[in-house]
């Protein structure tokens, strides 16, 4: 499963994407908990979860959405386009 990061989340983590083995991960929240074990940069990026948005296969989702079968999960701050 490809995991993407955007804006300040990408900057804090120091990379734009990770390849993650989804075995045992049911929801986007499970994925976050898994990532937070991968280093301090991930802990920092996921520190304030009210500022974290998630898209599963390019659809806006919530942290409790299932990631079963997902090919791409993205984490990013609230959007500021327009």
């Amino acid at each position, binding site marked *: 499963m490809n995991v993407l990061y955007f*804006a300040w989340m990408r900057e804090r983590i120091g990379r734009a994407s990770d390849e993650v083995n989804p075995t045992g991960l049911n929801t986007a929240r499970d994925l976050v908990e898994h990532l937070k074990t991968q280093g301090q940069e991930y802990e920092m990026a996921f520190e304030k979860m009210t500022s974290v948005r998630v*898209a599963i296969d*390019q659809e806006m989702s919530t942290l409790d959405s299932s990631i079963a079968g997902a090919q791409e999960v993205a984490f*990013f701050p*609230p*959007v*500021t*386009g*327009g």
Partner: protein
Amino acid sequence: MGGATSNSFSVSVQTKDFDIAAETKVLTASNTQIGAVASFIGLVRGSRETVRSLELEHYPGMTERSLEAILFEAKERWPLDGARIVHRVGALAPGDQIVLVLTASRNREASLEATAFIMDYLKTRAPFWKKEDGPEGSTWVDARESDDAAADRWDP
């Protein structure tokens, strides 16, 4: 001739600038039942002293999908003959055009309301992020609660 075709609804995410007059001409050219064209342009605010430049990041693929979904939703709600979103990405300067929304309809209120709706949804649902480069360095622009409130007013 005269009928709206499905490609009257389109989006572009691009680094280059846009020309609202040319975009309007394309949108209305094939359909003389259109009596109303409403539009919105967002510009980079700030003087050269406060904002040296703005960097617009986006999520390629999802951006286009989300903009198309917003146009589809607008088309379901209002009698539109066409609509267009152009959103720029990359480096921009104060005064530069960021976003264009254009809607065409037989009905004046429909075009103006749909334009407001598209902007409200774009502001809260399309994956773009702005980073400002000012005299005190670079900062990511915060999302505004007023944009969430504006989007919420369209909920049933």
